[in-house]
């Protein structure tokens, strides 16, 4: 493993890739920091840039964007009191008051350092867990893959939405859209309306650019002309030693950080839910466990630590199912899956055997990007604060043009550009109807996987459904999925619910 990691670092430490990653981290931080732009959008928009790069350079860039954007949300959370991304909602609770009390630099320093620690922790966990999990996953057949796909879908559809019914519907609709195109096994054309462009189905990236970027632009057009854009206050960096907080404060926060890191990692691994949930959960738990819990929400650095450690620990967590099973852990990794496929790499357990050096290049890129994030975000803060002031009515149209370019670049046809408009409208409809977009995307990706493996499994076992339940691993996953739905229904019928499950569902 060390040898492979060494090779990975060797690949990353070329001038070309280092420059790309520096740009990626900086762009990611901007996308994370500006409210309304997200990590998903950053990765989706930059994906077309990687088409002509090699897989190592391209994937390093995407990884850098992911890390920068996940962490960048804390800048606007603390300076504007508006979370830049859903993953830093809990940072506002204590970061905002700290800023008002004149401890802005301390809040930023704590946030950035613990973002860094959370990311590193999750990457180390990823590096140790992933190869073991891949070994187990190598023995998986169609029965197991079908069960895991169903389990993942159940989890995301029930957890991510405000209402379980709408979450399930969104997931189901995603699968329905994925059935467009030539069917697996007997290659019948389904729902193509005689458009030859639809034979391959809708492009995964066109769907995501539409749902996440175009829909966001239409949504902002609604209120944009009357929205008051907050002016970011600057902080004085004079007389600041290190990262603006003392070693004692750092030591005091370590247990909190460790716990939040584990929560972030765990929630990140679960398919479909990630940093957007884990920062709230770990904030609530940190508040309950802290001796000075009553000061949370009034400017306690513990709140910033809990939120930022947890959301960044989700990075390694989300990468884990993607790299070992080919199942994305959240929407950003869903786009990364597209990135892998475009470079001809199929994520899954075989990745560790056939593409060992590339896997460790990605690990190395994750680590290098994390260090870049630490220094760029703290010492380049003033630059990012300036960018927060770029007016939305200039920024959004330019992003739309980039969406169009990205969609066109997928296979040089205007059909994909029309698709992003279609899914942009659908995404806007989702926002209006209170339907969550994440289950839709995961359904769209896992639908074909579930169907293909169901058909294959049935062929293997001569049309016998029982094998899906009698195979130990497949059976347990299907059982878990069923148990989970029952648990959700029962707990939603009870009036009083536990705080954690409440937050998970909101």
């Amino acid at each position, binding site marked *: 493993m060390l040898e492979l990691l060494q090779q990975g670092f060797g690949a990353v430490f070329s001038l070309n890739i280092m420059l790309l990653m520096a740009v990626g981290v900086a762009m990611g931080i901007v996308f994370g920091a500006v409210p309304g732009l997200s990590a998903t959008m950053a990765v989706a928009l930059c994906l077309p840039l990687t088409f*002509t790069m090699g897989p190592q350079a391209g994937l390093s860039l995407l990884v850098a964007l992911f890390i920068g954007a996940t962490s960048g949300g804390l800048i606007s959370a603390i300076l504007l009191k508006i979370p830049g991304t859903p993953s830093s909602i809990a940072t506002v609770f204590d970061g905002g008051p700290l800023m008002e009390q004149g401890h802005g630099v301390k809040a930023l320093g704590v946030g950035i350092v613990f973002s860094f620690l959370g990311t590193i922790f999750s990457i180390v966990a990823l590096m140790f867990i992933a190869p073991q999990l891949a070994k187990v996953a190598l023995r998986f057949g169609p029965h197991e893959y079908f069960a895991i796909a169903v389990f993942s879908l159940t989890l995301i559809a029930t957890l991510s939405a405000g209402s379980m*019914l709408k979450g399930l*519907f969104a997931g189901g*609709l995603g699968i*329905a859209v994925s059935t467009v195109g030539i069917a697996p096994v007997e290659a019948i054309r389904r729902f193509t309306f005689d458009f030859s462009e639809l034979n391959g189905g809708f492009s995964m990236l066109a769907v995501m650019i539409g749902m996440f970027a175009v829909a966001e632009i239409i949504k902002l057009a609604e209120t944009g002309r*009357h929205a008051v854009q907050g002016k970011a206050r600057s902080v004085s960096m004079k007389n600041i030693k290190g990262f603006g907080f003392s070693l004692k404060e750092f030591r005091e926060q370590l247990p909190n950080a460790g716990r939040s890191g584990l929560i972030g990692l765990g929630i990140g691994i679960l398919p479909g839910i990630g940093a957007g949930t884990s920062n709230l959960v770990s*904030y609530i738990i940190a508040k309950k466990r802290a001796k000075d819990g009553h000061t949370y929400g009034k400017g306690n650095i513990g709140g910033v630590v809990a939120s930022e450690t947890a959301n960044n620990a989700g990075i390694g967590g989300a990468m884990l199912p993607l790299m070992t099973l080919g199942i994305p852990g959240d929407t950003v990794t869903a786009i990364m899956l597209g990135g892998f496929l475009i470079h001809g790499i199929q994520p899954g357990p075989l990745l560790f055997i056939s593409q060992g050096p590339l896997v460790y290049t990605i690990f190395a890129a994750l680590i290098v990007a994390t260090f870049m994030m630490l220094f760029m975000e703290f010492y380049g803060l003033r630059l990012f604060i300036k960018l927060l002031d770029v007016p939305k009515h200039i920024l959004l149209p330019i992003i739309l043009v980039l969406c169009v370019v990205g969609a*066109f670049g997928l296979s040089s046809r205007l059909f994909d550009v029309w698709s992003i408009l279609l899914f942009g409208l659908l995404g806007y409809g989702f926002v209006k109807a209170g339907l969550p977009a994440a289950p839709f995307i995961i359904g769209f990706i896992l639908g074909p996987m579930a169907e293909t493996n169901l*058909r294959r499994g049935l062929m293997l076992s001569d049309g016998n459904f029982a094998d899906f339940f009698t195979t130990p691993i497949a059976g347990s996953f299907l059982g878990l999925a069923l148990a989970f739905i029952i648990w959700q229904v029962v707990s939603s019928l009870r009036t009083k619910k536990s705080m954690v499950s409440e937050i998970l569902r909101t």
Partner: protein
Amino acid sequence: MNTTANKKELIIGLAMTGCSLAYLVMAYQLPNHQGVDAATLPLLLAGFLTLLGVLQVFGALASKPALGTERASDTQGELPASPAEAPPASVVEPKTVLLTLGLILGYIALLGPVGFPLMTVVYLYLQFLVLTPVQHKANHLVYLLIAVVCSAVIFLLFRQAFDLMLPAGLLNNFI
């Protein structure tokens, strides 16, 4: 629950049911219906989606007191209220949305025949104007300048550096 929220949920339910039924009809028209085949999953899925849509409609019709708001107030005790959670009442402008949609539609439709460089300048300039905040004055010269520079930079960057031949349209003979 107040009636407008109920009505909204009802409309959502009807839309969900409508979509599911349309999908069900299309799934029925697929060839072959013997054993497990290419029509099986769409049919099962369509049935499941229709069920969910109907449940949503019934849920909206049964006008129980709003569970959602009660639950939300439960959580508030744990999470401190922040100004971000209570934004000032924002004005929703359907007109701006429609104009934006129209612009995007026109942009994509003319992208092929007129070409990326020209259409991008036109689109960006008009979209800047449409989205200009009410309290701002539109600065035509700056908008035009940003539009031209963005269009040129994106077009040339992708053409030269990333080998992506964006449609040049009318400018085909000049570039």
